[in-house]
């Protein structure tokens, strides 16, 4: 089974801190995604990457950056955390191999970030 591992389940940071959220997948997937999940808003895409060193903005990239130096690892960076970035962050990966119809997203368990 595909495993998508997020380094922390819970994280508490202070306003202005630089925050790193790490995600690792073990299935050699090309595509990786970062979403944030807020009650009533569902999941909103922050950034995605379809290859090493490649990144694309999602719907809400402001205040975030990403890094993908290795295929299996996709990091989300909050340069200066703010209270409105308190949220659940979900990482996902997928592979386009086999065609779009067979592509499936695999999600990590999430990181609940609280910014005080």
């Amino acid at each position: 089974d595909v495993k998508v591992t997020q380094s922390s389940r819970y994280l508490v940071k202070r306003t202005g801190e630089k925050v790193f959220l790490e995600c690792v997948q073990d299935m050699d997937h090309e595509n990786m995604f970062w979403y944030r999940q807020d009650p009533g808003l569902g999941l909103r895409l922050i950034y995605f990457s379809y290859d090493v060193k490649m990144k694309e903005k999602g719907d809400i990239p402001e205040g975030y950056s990403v890094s993908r130096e290795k295929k299996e690892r996709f990091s989300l960076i909050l340069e200066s955390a703010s209270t409105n970035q308190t949220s659940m962050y979900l990482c996902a990966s997928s592979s386009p191999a086999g065609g779009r119809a067979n592509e499936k997203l695999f999600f990590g368990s999430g990181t609940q970030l609280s910014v005080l």
Partner: protein
Amino acid sequence: AQSVTQPDIHITVSEGASLELRCNYSYGATPYLFWYVQSPGQGLQLLLKYFSGDTLVQGIKGFEAEFKRSQSSFNLRKPSVHWSDAAEYFCAVRAGNMLTFGGGTRLMVKP
């Protein structure tokens, strides 16, 4: 731009009763549609997907969904709900590389 609306934020059903969760989408082309489930403390798991062909799709855990183009809907159904189905359910539509999710419906199951 594509969008997904799940009109019901919370739904409560009795165990053994039937279930229908509503999903409406907005997308200019033929949609790729998905339902995901998130159990407490878990990541999201794919229940089923529609790409083309038969408009009634079967998924895991006894769920099914029907694509109705005329109504821009992709409602999720289950004939008999089990207590373990209590979770949050998300409908999603794909456009290119991006998957756009609805706001979610939290399902509670009464004994």
